[in-house]
């Protein structure tokens, strides 16, 4: 036991002290926050656009209101000459709306110094469309207020189970999808890490030195547990960093911009504010402690299930790393199949495929995580969860036992390509 601990410590420390660990660990939350930050900054960059509008038919005259940092100014000028001088007159862009029939609008052209940004383009298009639609309604004799009153907005509220908990299929879908995908990535990334560790030991010929001090099983388990520790550490740091960075976010962007961005978002759609409050309500309705507990269990269980198999494969590889490719295929295949079952499961969490996929340990870590956000015991009955948990625990004990047998012989075997038949023989050997 003590020896396993020494091995775990080495496997853990050598990886955590690596520069690449530090870089990945710091970079991922930064990217994550950047994904939130960039759209906000993009809105910000719309600041101080001064756009001259040359409207030949005067259809839009006075109907384009200033919007955030974008200012429209209608200019009575000839486009042919004006387009050469608008920059000198302090405009950042020039919008030319040629004379048109409102039923068949021609091509509207925007002149600018550099490329037009996407936000601005869609923003302007939306505004022009709005004006044009109003005009057409007027021509057709349709009362705009009446149209607004006719527009329907239906929202089905789902009350699940006896206690009529409010749920949201959309949110469950998103959470399930995200969690399952995360488990999938963890299985492959950390499984491969284990495999590479074993390959390194075998190719450096450290393996034989090691097994004269410790049992192969201790060596294998030490590595698997040590790397699991690395994974958990990384997640912990990520969660702390992401939460921390999000709290610091206003400092980077400035609280005004954040509020402005939020106000702008809400302003665009009156229903938005209401929708936001709805989401908050639903987020509270999700059983977060259960999801996080299950996530940790399926992350660890799935990892242990596959890591042992990856270790066994690593022990079979000889000098040629390409060999690893073909040998890992039988292991990555069920992982990839489970991601496809997962795609089906998030859409229909009670389908046959989803239910069985979440019980069989080959795919349960990924598929069950897709189903759980839909509710326990509403969508996933307790018996299914229990069966899945029991099978996964039994499953990783089984794969570990199996892998240990392959690993023990594999790491000491040099210069020989191993056939599946031989591996089969190792499995049936007693000691």
């Amino acid at each position: 036991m003590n020896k396993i601990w020494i091995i775990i410590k080495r496997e853990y420390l050598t990886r955590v002290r690596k520069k690449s660990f530090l870089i990945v660990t710091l970079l991922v939350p930064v990217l994550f926050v950047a994904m939130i930050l960039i759209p906000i900054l993009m809105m910000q960059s719309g600041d101080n656009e001064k756009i001259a509008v040359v409207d030949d038919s005067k259809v839009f005259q006075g109907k384009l209101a200033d919007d955030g940092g974008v200012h429209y100014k209608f200019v009575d000028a000839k486009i042919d000459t004006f387009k050469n001088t608008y920059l000198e007159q302090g405009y950042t862009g020039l919008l030319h709306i040629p004379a048109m029939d409102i039923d068949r609008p021609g091509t509207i052209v925007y002149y600018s110094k550099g490329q037009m940004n996407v936000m601005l383009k869609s923003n302007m298009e939306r505004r022009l469309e709005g004006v044009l639609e109003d005009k057409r309604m007027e021509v057709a004799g349709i009362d705009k207020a009446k149209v607004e009153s006719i527009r329907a907005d239906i929202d089905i509220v789902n009350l699940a189970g006896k206690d009529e908990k409010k749920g949201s299929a959309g949110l469950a879908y998103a959470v399930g999808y995200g969690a399952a995908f995360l488990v999938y990535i963890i299985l492959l990334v950390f499984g491969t890490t284990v495999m590479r560790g074993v390959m390194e030991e075998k190719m450096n010929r450290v393996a034989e030195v090691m097994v004269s001090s410790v049992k192969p099983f201790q060596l294998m388990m030490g590595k698997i547990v040590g790397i699991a520790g690395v994974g958990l550490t990384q997640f912990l740091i990520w969660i702390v960093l992401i939460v921390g960075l999000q709290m610091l976010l206003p400092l980077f962007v400035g609280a005004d911009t954040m509020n402005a961005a939020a106000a702008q978002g809400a302003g665009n759609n009156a229903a938005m504010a209401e929708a936001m409050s709805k989401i908050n309500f639903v987020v509270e309705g999700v059983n977060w402690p259960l999801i996080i507990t299950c996530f940790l269990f399926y992350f660890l269980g799935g990892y242990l299930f596959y890591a042992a198999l990856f270790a066994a494969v690593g022990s079979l590889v000889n000098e040629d790393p390409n060999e690893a490719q073909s040998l890992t295929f039988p292991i990555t295949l069920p992982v990839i199949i489970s991601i496809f079952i997962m795609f089906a499961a998030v859409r229909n969490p009670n389908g046959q495929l989803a239910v069985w996929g979440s019980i069989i340990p080959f795919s349960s870590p990924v598929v069950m995580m897709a189903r759980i956000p839909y509710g326990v015991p509403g969508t996933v009955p307790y018996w299914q969860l229990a069966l899945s948990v029991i099978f996964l625990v039994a499953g990783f004990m089984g794969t570990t036992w199996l892998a240990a047998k392959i690993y023990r012989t594999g790491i000491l075997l040099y210069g020989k390509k191993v056939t599946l038949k031989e591996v089969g023989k190792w499995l049936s050997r007693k000691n």
Partner: protein
Amino acid sequence: MNVLELQHLKKHYATHKAVDDISFTIPKGSIFGLLGPNGAGKTTLLRMITGIFYPDDGEIIFDGKKFDPHKDIHHIGYMPEERGLYKKMKVGEQVMYLAQLKGLGKQDAQTKIDHWFAKFEIASWVNKKVEELSKGMQQKVQFISTIMHQPKLLILDEPFSGLDPINSQLIQDEIFEMARNGTTIIFSTHRMEQVEEICDHIVLVNKGRKVLDGSVKEIKQNFKQHLFRIALDEQPNPAQMATWHFTIVQQHEKAYTVKLNEASKTNDILSHFIHHGIQVNYFEEILPTINEVFISQVKNAEA
């Protein structure tokens, strides 16, 4: 007292018998040579002695008791032929790690690391990564990590491969000193001149079976061909050569290699030349080298 006794050890693989009924004993403090051609079963034998493999049949007695891999592994140091270190690890940490896995406490291990690194004049490498060292330097580190825990039984498989003569000598001296202090050493190699230089006893295995077992002196005596080397002052005429006592195998001017006839004694030859007033510059028996014994035995087995 014997440190190690192997009794009818067997290990069979699916296709062949790697070790087929091998028995021998190794007395305490001896340097014991385990010889054999490639694929003779040496590595399998050593893996059983180090507890990596279980024998299919037979018994290993270690230090007077039945071998218990769990406990006894702490008293064995094994430097396998296929050996290596973690390339990205610092030398000091690496040796510390291996020492701890042999059951040494941290303090104890640190004292020993300081001692050995000073003795081998490599104290300045402690913080270098293994990959920065030359192959010979890595070998030295490997050797230190094998003997750190003061094993009762030290097993060295081709310990000198990759070492320059100076470092070879350093390690050879260390092996002798350890043997004097009571460590038993099993030395496995193909390099026969080293066997003669270092080993007291040897066992020769071939195709999973024991072919020879005995002290180096005994074996040389047992396999001698009754060959002698004689150098004379002058070249005698053929009539004066006492060819009834011997046959000339080889002649190089006034030096002869002769094979003694069965009925004759060495003194017969000497007294013959003395009687004829022919000056004998030297006269010595040619004993077979272990290399010759090895080759003849292995070839015999093939024939």
